[in-house]
């Protein structure tokens, strides 16, 4: 990007025919992207204005499908659930990650930290489906979670966490938090290692404690990394599918139904293609509406 304009112009002038050659290089990527992403995306928008069962004739219904998202309490609940999941998928891992990273900053170069880097990444490497299976077992009525509760004398709290109307959604959130907390911690730790250590030295000499240090040095310097962690985790929450599909399939009742899973059910078992597409459009817009402001907030200042 830092190439002087004159140099670029000169090159272009020398080989006028080659100027468009770049598009030829980009062509395979553009073709694949257009065929398997952009075209379906346009079709999603188109389908969303119709009532169609996938086989017979379709009827134009205008914005009715979109209206239903807001009036049908079951559909609207999926969006509410997605936002509730943000608390677990995003806030918990980022805040916990910040706390842990700040605490272990001093030992970031030790052997223990090197081992931790490998261990904390494990949940990122395995399929989310496997995480779902593991945790459905841990959170089941005879699982480890209940066993631990009984061991400390909290028998009355034990239950089938994923099967209880009140606890199913937080339990799904817990699985997401487990998957994402390691990633957030390591991202933030990597960011912290870029901070000039002399800043901390100076703060210590001025008598600042760990808390003061965290708020005046660590937090402001991590703007970009925090932005990245929040973006990644928020997308994971809003577009969650794998974990919910495996752990609860949206149940009990509809208490853990999220937009991604509802789209799947609407399109492939209830054959309401138009409705599924409207919800899909809403989901795409929702992700953009949440992610773009985060990007603005965290990127602008640092450039």
């Amino acid at each position, binding site marked *: 990007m830092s190439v002087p304009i004159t140099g670029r112009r000169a090159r272009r002038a020398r080989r006028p025919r080659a100027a468009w050659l770049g598009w030829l290089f980009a062509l395979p990527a553009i073709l694949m992207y257009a065929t398997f992403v952009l075209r379906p995306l346009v079709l999603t928008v188109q389908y969303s204005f119709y009532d169609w069962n996938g086989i017979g004739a379709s009827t134009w219904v205008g914005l009715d499908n979109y209206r239903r998202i807001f009036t049908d309490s079951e559909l609207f609940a999926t969006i509410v659930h997605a936002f509730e999941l943000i608390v677990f998928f995003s806030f918990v891992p980022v805040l916990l990650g910040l706390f842990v990273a700040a605490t272990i900053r001093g030992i970031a170069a030790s052997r223990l930290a090197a081992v931790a880097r490998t261990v904390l990444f494990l949940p990122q490497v395995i399929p989310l489906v*496997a995480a779902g299976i593991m945790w459905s077992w*841990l959170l089941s009525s005879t699982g480890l979670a209940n066993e631990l509760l009984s061991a400390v004398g909290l028998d009355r709290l034990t239950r089938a966490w994923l099967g209880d109307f009140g606890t199913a959604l937080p339990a799904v959130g817990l699985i997401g938090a487990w998957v994402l907390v390691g990633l957030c911690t390591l991202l933030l730790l*990597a960011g912290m290692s870029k901070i000039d250590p002399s800043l901390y030295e100076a703060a210590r000499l001025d008598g600042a404690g760990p808390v003061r240090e965290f708020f005046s040095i660590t937090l402001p310097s991590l703007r970009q990394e925090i932005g990245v962690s929040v973006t990644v985790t928020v997308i994971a929450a809003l577009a969650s599918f794998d974990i919910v599909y495996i752990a609860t399939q949206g149940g009990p009742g509809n208490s853990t139904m999220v937009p991604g899973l509802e789209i799947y059910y609407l399109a492939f078992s209830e054959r309401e293609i138009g409705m599924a597409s409207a919800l899909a459009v809403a989901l795409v817009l929702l992700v953009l509406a949440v992610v773009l402001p985060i990007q603005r907030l965290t990127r602008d200042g640092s450039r």
Partner: protein
Amino acid sequence: MIVNRRETLIGRVLLVLLMVITIVPFISLFVTALHPAGTYPSGLSWPDSPQWGNFADAFRAANMGKLLWSSCLIVLGVVPLSLLFGALAGFAFGHLRMPGHRIGFLVFVLGLTLPFEGIITPLYYQVRDMGLLNTRWAIILPLIGLFMPFSVVWMRAHFVTMPDDLSEAARIDGASTWQLFWRVHVPLAMPALSSLAILLFLWTWNQFLLAIVLVDDPQKRTMAGALGAFQGQWGTDIPLLCAGALLILVPTLAVFLIFQRRFVTALLQGSIKG
């Protein structure tokens, strides 16, 4: 650096605690897998007689040999082509900078946040009309398309940092743009390409949604997709399910442990750029 003892100790304890929380589910899975099939073992108890045969049973029940092969075929279809197309386009947008390259690139950037659920419905009908439903191509081709935004953005970020002088020098020696790309820029892009390869491998192997929607036969799915089917079939036999889940984890875990360092850097950079 001035760090006092107490803080170091708290840091260590916290770190170990976090590691334990991360590891315990794996251990629980492993221990459970060793219990006699069909029982409902409790928590973390070690079985009286470990049933190592469960792994063999799960291997047979899930037809794991075929599954591994299927997943490998899918990865081999997706990763090399995605790398090639991503590198070509990244080179164009980052280095050749043809007229209109900004707009072209922006269209790819906008695709970065797209949830797969957003296009899965029309994708199903499109793949069906192409006659690819229930074949591995039904996963391979759409995945290449879906990986394009990330691959292009990733490779462009690399090519943007390459100095123009390098290309000028090669051109003076008479290299065409095609030769310039293959002889000069691809060899220099190897670190970026290998990190991208790792990420794409992982995301392909673990892909679930496309697998369950577009391919009915678990034997033609990715590992993750097959695990979903395995759960449906053996969901009530907890030890067998755990053994199966563990077996399906092994390949990615093995690759991860072998390429550990690359992996961690790739994933960290990957989320920064994504």
